[in-house]
């Protein structure tokens, strides 16, 4: 009986939270399917009747290029950040040297910088490097953004791995890279996945720097494209929500796929007896 009640309570907690998180997304989706008039009806119309795809088709292929830019910038920045952060986090966690604490702190403190103040210096920097309005420039700016978070997260996760396992592997003859790749990473796969997703989304949803450094469709990303639906006089809610939903789909797909990896990582690397 106790068990049933506890189960019920647990589900209730999850359900309440789920409603809170889903509601705005659902509302965005519903809004995107409404014809213009119903969008702003007072009192609000919940279900579009009839639902329409005009907000989706109205966009046209123009935004595909924004999507391409977002994908390239985010994927490349994430890949580079992972390549930098994983070894670095492992180094900070397991191989301290004289100033490693300071270096770690320096990397991590970058997250405390209010992004607003970065727009002008980054603009100047990229302008002088000739990287304005280029995807490379954007990646160059996104890598530190992600690295600071990833190093921070991964260092903590890597430190959680019991030393004995690594020592055992060392005795077995595994080198540093081997221990990292074959012991630590598999054991922290769920956390690694979380860090990767969080880092990726930091670039995917970023607006300020993409807007500052971008000029044309050569490098402008989807958030910039979506912002164009808010003009000084009115907001095109239909297009805003439709494109907002569209922009979520790739991430949802990837996360769904990654979830399987997450679970298999859990069962494979778990410390169950």
């Amino acid at each position, binding site marked *: 009986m106790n068990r049933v009640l506890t189960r019920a309570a647990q589900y209730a907690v*999850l359900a309440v939270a*789920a409603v*809170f*998180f889903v509601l*705005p*997304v659902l*509302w*965005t989706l519903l*809004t995107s399917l409404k014809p213009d008039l119903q969008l702003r*009806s*007072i*009192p*609000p119309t919940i279900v579009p009747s009839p639902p329409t795809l005009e907000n989706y088709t109205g966009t046209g292929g123009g935004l595909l290029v924004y999507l391409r830019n977002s994908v390239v910038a985010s994927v490349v920045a994430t890949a580079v950040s992972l390549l*930098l952060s994983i070894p*670095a986090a492992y*180094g900070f966690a*397991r191989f301290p*040297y*004289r100033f*490693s604490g300071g270096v770690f702190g*320096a*990397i991590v*403190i*970058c997250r*405390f*910088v209010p992004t607003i*103040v*970065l727009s*002008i*210096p980054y603009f100047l*920097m990229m302008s002088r490097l000739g990287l304005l309005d280029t995807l490379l420039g954007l990646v160059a700016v996104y890598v530190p953004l992600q*690295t*600071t978070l990833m190093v921070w*997260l991964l260092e903590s*996760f890597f*430190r*959680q791995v019991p030393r004995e*396992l690594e020592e*055992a*592997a060392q005795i*077995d*003859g595994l*080198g540093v890279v081997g221990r990292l790749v074959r012991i630590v990473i598999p054991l922290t796969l*769920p*956390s690694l996945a979380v860090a990767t997703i*969080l880092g990726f*989304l930091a670039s995917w949803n970023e*607006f300020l720097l993409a807007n500052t450094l971008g000029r044309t469709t050569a490098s402008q990303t989807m*958030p910039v494209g*979506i912002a164009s639906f808010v003009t000084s006089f009115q907001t095109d*809610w239909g297009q*805003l*929500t439709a494109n*907002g939903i569209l922009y979520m789909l790739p991430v949802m797909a990837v*996360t*769904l796929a990654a979830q399987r990896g997450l679970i298999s990582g*859990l069962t494979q*690397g778990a*410390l*169950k007896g």
Partner: protein
Amino acid sequence: MAPELAPAGAAPAAPAPRRPRGGERGPAADRTRGRRVGLLLTAPAALVMAATVAYPLVWVLQISVTSSATAVTGGHFVGLENYGAVLRSGSFRDALWHTVVFVVLTVTIEVVLSVLLATVLAKRLAGHRIFVGIFALPLMMAPIVSGFMWRWLFADQYGLVNYLLSLVGVDGPLWGGSPFWARLSILVANLWTALPFGILVLFAGMAGIPEELDEAAQLDGAGPWQRFRHVTLPLLRPAILLVLVVRIADAFRVYDVVYILTGGGPAGSTNVLNTYIFKRSFSDFQFGQGAAAAVLVMVLSAVISVAAFRVLRPKEDAQ
């Protein structure tokens, strides 16, 4: 793929032929080698960070001690004048106060709720994977979209929140009409975007907590709350601290949701540090003061984070 893992604490198998990978040259050589390895592993990230962040940071510091009226080039050294002007500014102090209160409130709520939800998720009830996906949804929505959606949800005439409240007979408040409700609306909207981070990180952290400990405690007769307090929580502590410190940094930088929902109103009651910096720089053309404020914000939030970390971390290091 991975070699068979002996359970934690078990002795390694019968001695295998040892390859001298440093284990035999003695502890000092080990440490030197360890330091060298550490340097090699961390150098790429450190160098890349330095190369990409040094310029902006130096620029901000430089501008913060320069008089800058119309351009960010030119202007002369003015020492700490900008810092003084910022600290004396009433709107900075208001923004500071608003931000600090916001940080304390939101981070506390976030940590508590994240721990709660992550714990329940970690029970791996049937269908928990779906919940994990749902809890990650807010992260996937671009802030510009979610910001406008929340503003719309809180609108009085055609907003969903008040409409739903009216369905249960509650007369919804004017969310933008008074400082209290405006602040609450920002808090709620921000929680929506911020909670997933904590939940996911803590959930991932809980994956590393061995079940045997919990089961052992259960066999010993410990109730669920006691098990939570004495088994789960201590092991989760590093992850909680991580979430806490990162979220303090993030909460200090809140901007989009404030700008979109209230623009800092009504009557400046929701002005935060970032809106102050933005306004000072791009609206008042006082880039030097904006930069000075940014430096102050960085220092302050870092100090608070470190302090929180020091106070709350376990006496013995996690390892």
